[in-house]
């Protein structure tokens, strides 16, 4: 029993990093309907921003803020340089995909030059080693903190989308760009803000994952992008609560496929299950698309 509960803890902990990252993905892919392959690079960038801040001696919450803002700025730059330019020239959606893929590659290349290709870790601290044991289940303080931070970020995003004027603007743009323009929503600025939010979420999750698993490398974003895409498809495109639920679900699926089937089939089972879910429910588990009709 304690082994089962331990696996639940493992899955939730892994899932919390997926969830934060997927929220950013769903904003861009689902809400703005833009295919942005550089989302994984924002994630990687955020991890390095946080790492450098932590190495300069900033306390963890401030380092997280640096990762958040750093990731957000990367997101805004991507919009300004790539997507806005392409939109202004009437580029097709697929061009954005290729251009953002190129941007991601460039960012990885720059990170390789600046930080080196070797895996780095966050500075050691006694905080990282604190763990509790409850009924044979081991929980690290770090896991709890990361879960709390994730939940706070989720709540903040939900509040921003539902209760603020920028959130209303985002939802209007998501519904229809032309309608948004007619009712006087500044579409360009709204998209820029959305990119900031998505980049910030990616950056924050980069720092969280970098801390939790002790890996910061220029290549860390590539696999994460695949996970992020999976989660938002699972949760329903553009559905923020769906992305959160999907993130935790994917974390649990991965852990339990290792725990009860075989570690060799981790991805095969994880993705196989997702394939099945999509066959049964093609719009994703939690999709209501209500945000698009708002």
């Amino acid at each position: 029993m304690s082994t089962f509960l331990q696996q639940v803890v493992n899955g939730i902990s892994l899932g919390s990093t997926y969830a934060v990252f997927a929220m950013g993905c769903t904003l861009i892919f689902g809400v703005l309907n833009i295919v942005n392959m550089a989302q994984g690079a924002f994630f990687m960038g955020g991890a390095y921003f946080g790492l450098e801040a932590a190495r300069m001696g900033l306390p963890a919450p401030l380092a997280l803020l640096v990762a958040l803002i750093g990731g957000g700025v990367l997101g805004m730059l991507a919009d300004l340089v790539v997507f806005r330019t392409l939109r202004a020239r009437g580029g097709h959606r697929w061009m954005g995909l290729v251009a953002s893929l190129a941007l991601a590659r460039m960012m990885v290349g720059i990170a390789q030059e600046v930080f080196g290709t070797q895996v780095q870790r966050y500075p050691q601290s006694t905080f990282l080693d604190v763990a509790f044991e409850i009924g044979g289940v081991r929980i690290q303080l770090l896991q709890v903190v990361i879960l709390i931070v994730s939940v706070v970020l989720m709540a903040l995003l939900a509040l921003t989308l539902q209760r603020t004027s920028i959130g209303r603007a985002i939802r209007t743009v998501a519904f229809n760009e032309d309608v948004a323009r007619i009712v006087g929503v500044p579409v360009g600025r709204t998209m820029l803000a959305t990119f900031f939010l998505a980049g910030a979420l990616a950056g924050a999750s980069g720092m969280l994952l970098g801390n939790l698993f002790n890996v910061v490398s220029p290549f860390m974003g590539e696999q994460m992008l695949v996970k992020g895409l999976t989660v938002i498809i699972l949760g329903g495109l553009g559905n923020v609560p769906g992305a959160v639920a999907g993130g935790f679900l994917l974390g649990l699926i991965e852990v339990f496929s290792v725990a009860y089937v075989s570690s060799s089939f981790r991805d095969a089972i994880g993705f196989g299950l997702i394939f099945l879910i999509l066959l049964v429910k093609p719009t994703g588990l939690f999709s209501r698309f209500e945000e698009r009709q708002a």
Partner: protein
Amino acid sequence: MKRAMFTLLLSVAVAAGASMTERSARAETPVKIGIVQATSGGSAALYGLMQKNAAELAIEEVNASGSLGDFKLVGIHQDDGGDRGQSVNIFQRLINQEKVSVLLGPTLTTSAFAADPIAQKAQVPVIASSNTAPGVPDIGDYIFRTSPPESMVFPGVLAYVKKKFSPKSAAQIYGIDDALMKAAYAVHKKALDAEGIKIVATETFQKGDVDYSAQLTKIKAANPDILVIGGLAEETANIVRQARQLGIGPSTMVLGANAAISTKLAELAGAAAEGFTVGSSWFIQFDNPKNKAFVAAYRKKYNSDPDTFAAQAYTSVYVFAAALKRAGGISDSKKLRDAIAETKDLDSNIGPFSFDANREPVIVPKVLIVKDGKFTLATD
């Protein structure tokens, strides 16, 4: 005045010309050495960069020593990013266009199996310094390595652990999508079986995984006396750290593959690396004049400590240089190959070095344990 100036200029020109012809009369024969090491691409780059550095250092030293007479070693490095497709392209380019006399590398065993046959076909000797899976020199008679295979070091490590701690049960975890780690797993299993240690759990992971908690939770439930990890340094570091975080206590001893030896391991794993045990051909404090000179020169040039693979890459260059001297030239690749194969008790930085009949390195393996964040020689 003008005329005097002209004469002066002329005489300078003549003098310069004379010295130029003099230099070309003592023309150096360049001997091109292809260095195929990953300097990008995650885990592979950990090993590749240091090997490239060490090989380039050795090439400089050999050239500066003048021991090769008119031969001048020229290292040409190419980064394969740990991707075997790239290794194949690079081997072809270095062999066909650059006409290299020898190839050092590639970094990963998977790359070696893909690219070495090209060198074998072209009869260009290959000396690897980080391929440790079984069968690499079996690719052909031009394929050598200075890196001892896992099967040469792990049984010695396990025998040491058994004698000292008499473990009864073991768990294994290894990278299933890496030829080297699958091979290491087989070697570990065979050695465990031979020592009569019961294997109570076997888990796998894949390249790029960062979360091993699910596998380690299963292993924890099996409560083994030893945990044997078949992974590269960066993966092993994370597995060790996560194992300790999940509460797999110090009563479970952690053993690793030869490939996990890197200064990066203790750095990434922190305190969790304490007691991590592994077998090696080399260690940094190895008491040998050649090794001390190597470590000092490497530190001076690169401001960091070399690892085992770097030491072996350095050895590779000296093995080749000695063979080149014996062969007396590069025109006959068969003769060059034979000279490399004949390497016997070469006084190297990893101790007396020879190749056996299968082109495998013959060295004295050592048991290393991480203590205070550093690999140290095990005491009996």
